[in-house]
């Protein structure tokens, strides 16, 4: 499987990939989306976000493309999108986390979401 050896993902990587499942984004968009969905728990600063994105690109989970239609300050903005591999990895990781939380729920560590046993 393509995902062997890649899991578990670090929380930051996971969040980035998760955000990108909703569509390609610029760096700024990723930070804003993370503020919305992860609040104060996981935060990105611009400089290190780009380092993480570059790494994910090298690992083949994300692609970078310049969007010529969106010119800001002379340099074309970069857009980041999930590759198929990336999509598989984030799905696999979500499933892994879901299994863990199921166990936690079964052991009464977190409350039921109300969906019945």
């Amino acid at each position, binding site marked *: 499987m393509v995902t062997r*050896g*890649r899991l578990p993902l*670090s929380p930051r990587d996971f969040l980035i990939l998760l955000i990108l499942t909703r569509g390609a984004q610029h*760096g*700024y968009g990723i*930070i*804003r989306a993370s503020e919305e969905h992860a609040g104060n728990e996981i*935060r990105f*600063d*611009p*400089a*290190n*976000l*780009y*380092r993480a994105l*570059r*790494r994910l690109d*090298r*690992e083949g989970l994300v692609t970078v493309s310049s969007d010529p239609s969106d010119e*800001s*300050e002379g*340099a074309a*903005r*970069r857009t980041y999108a999930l590759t198929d591999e990336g999509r598989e990895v984030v799905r696999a990781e979500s499933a892994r986390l879901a299994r863990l939380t199921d166990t936690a729920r079964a052991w009464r560590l977190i409350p039921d979401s109300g969906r019945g046993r």
Partner: protein
Amino acid sequence: MTFAARVYRAVLYLFPRAYRERYHDQAVSDFDALFRERSVRNGRFGAARFACWCLLRALGGAFGEWAFTLNEAKGPPAAARTRPGLRRGIFGMRHDIKYAARSLAKRPGFAVTVVLLLATGIGAATAVFSVVDAVLLRQLPYPDPDRLVYLEEGAHPPADFADWEREVESIATWGGVFSDEVDITGAERPDRITVGRVTPDLFDLLGARATMGRLFASEEHVGDPSVAVVSHRFWQARWGSDPELLGRQIRVGDRPLTVVGIMASDFVVPTGLRGRETAVWTPLDLLDPDIQGRGYHVLNVVGRLAPGVSVEAARAEMELMNERFADLYPDSHRARDGTYARTPVVTLEEAEVGGVQTTLLMLMGAVGLLLLLACVNVANLLLARGADRTRELALKGALGARRANVFAQLTTESLLLSLAGGLVGVGLAFLGVRLFEILEPGVLPRTESVGVDLRVLGFALAISVATGLVFGLVPALQATRVDVNAALKDGSGRATAGRERARIQGSLVVSEVALSLILLTGAGLLFHSFVRLTRVDTGFDSAQLVTVDLQLGDPYDVESRIQFVEELTRRLRVIPQTRAVVAGATLPFQYATGGTCCFQSSVSTPTTEDGQEVRTLLHPVTPGFLSALNVSILSGRDIEPSDDGVEPVPVVLSEHAAERLFGEEDPLGQTISFSSRQARVVGVAGNVQHESFNRDVRPELYMPWKVRGPDIPYLNFAIRTDLDIGAVAPAIRAAIWDLDPNLPVPDIVTMEGRMARSVAEERFYSVLLATFAAVALLLAAGGIYATFLYSVRQRMREMGIRLALGARRGDVVRLVLRRGVLLTAIGVVVGLGAAALGARLLANMVFGITPHDPLTYTVVSGVMGLVALAACLVPALRAGRTDPLETLRAD
């Protein structure tokens, strides 16, 4: 772009070029957008917090990125690796920290030295920053302080104020304070205090609150109600914070006032409004008939700008007002030469701290140099230590550690050291701030809030991290360039990197000398200037002279003042060991720190043409004044008792006045006129530096005290005594209170004390800079000594061989010294150049010399040279004492 984004952009320059080419602009623009959005959402502090977090993360990212880059240089990562580069996450970092701590613990002496060096630099920088922060950076403690403005050029007439309040549109709210020196009497001892009479809106404008009771009601600003608000400090000092004071009556200016409130302790009145000294506030009635004169300049004015109006607009509107008033009231608002009174509008902040900005920034620069010097020293030590670890690092390399990891390891060590240094430094900063509170002579505004608080701690943390990266970078890069093979083969650990290391150390020594020299030059200039200042010939003898300044206000009149002076002179003469007792309307150095001295008048001779009168200081003095002060009588005589009531008035001119009025002619016996009086010159006295050390000498005239003296309440006694002030002051006070128990006697000081106070500011900065320079000299000497000691040790083998081959010990010593001389010379030249450039900043602070004073520069270079040579002499001598057999054997 916001300022925060600019800073962020600057920090991102720490990243390697490859990263920057791809991401720099984008990251900065993202940060800018996020920062703006945070400002709107979370306000200033939320945005500031976000900015600080991003900056710190960027620093960490830079370090990680460099490690990544170095690793990349070794070749592309294996494709199947999950985490190429330095992705060890927090586990890796913890390992680094543990390893660093262990490795430092193995050399505790080294670690402690480095930490102390850094603590000195960081502590000093933090202490100075806490002052700069409190005085310059922090906002004024009033509601909406950016909208507050101050009307300059002294005090203004209350009648003008009333008009401005009505008519000026760009300033919405106006507030003013009329400060006066008044006596407070009553059960406790009499004292002279500053009373501030305030207009209705002043307290609101400044957000004042009462901690007990209340402030004034608007009805109380009409008529003359007898109410008062006491300042917190005065309440503590005079009544020991007695809560029973509320509602009681106090006797101020011979009037009973009811205390209706105590001001909150955190209320800080701007210095422009005499806030520091004001003890009691009373309400001011702007319609009070006594203060309606258009020439009655008594009100210090602040205001709040109307919403949306800029300071420039207010300034422009006030200029138009000034012009209008000059036309409406030419007698009071226009000068003889046609110019009119101006009231420039400046922001309150500018009025408060504008004057000290340059000085404080200069201090910050000086302490920054000190910190840099400490860093250079530490870098030097680390380089030396890096050499000792060559084998250890080579081994690690051979066993597979990546350069990046080693680099990260060493940088972690540096950061650990610098953070430890920062911790100790903060402790030193606390001490420094305490010392500052004790020693600061009161010239800086807003010093109440100086302290080590969260912001200052944040600064300390930031510079600790920064210094760690600065001094750690070069040695770490150097150390990781080790050639593994050569290092392992060469048993004693001397790699070819040693030559490069020596070169770097050499340039570090040069920097140390240069940096020290800059600080020494600054200190030298201030010191030289201070000496020049205090060596100015004052024209009188200030030793063993005790002064008392009194105010004989109501109920004294001319007759009773004359009686008082005669009686008190008699009583003071009786005090044992008193040589002379004289009095005058003012004494020298009384107004050294500001205010206008003395009566002045235009003096003319019968032959003076119109417009050529000489503006002269007039001194009403009791007989024998000049002899008592030991002013030289150049011709004629002093004022004598028989001069009382004589017409024309017998006067003594100062040499300067005589020259201006009579030129080469003999002034004795000549007639002059001033203030519609006729006078006859009976003596010429030497010039006296009447106002302060650095003001130009003015023409002066001495006349019998009973002429004009009793017209004013101000009176000063000068007593030449063989006793010291502790012994004679109680006797003086007793004599005064015997005559009038209700007379406040606030100040009995020696003349020398007064003179010292007049230069307190110059002394303070001199001492401060001298301290920095002394520490810098110590650091430089220590650094040079350590560097040469180390280099001699490294070259032991070479020395041994030379000696074995027949070199004399003196030659070996000279070899070492030659390098020392060369490096010192280069350092001195560079330092002098830099000092000469920077000395211009001190142009305003030096007296009697230029910022490029050759004597100072020469002396300072000489001192630096000697110290540097002394520092490398000991290692040189040690080199000479090498035993060739020992070294050759030990190889």
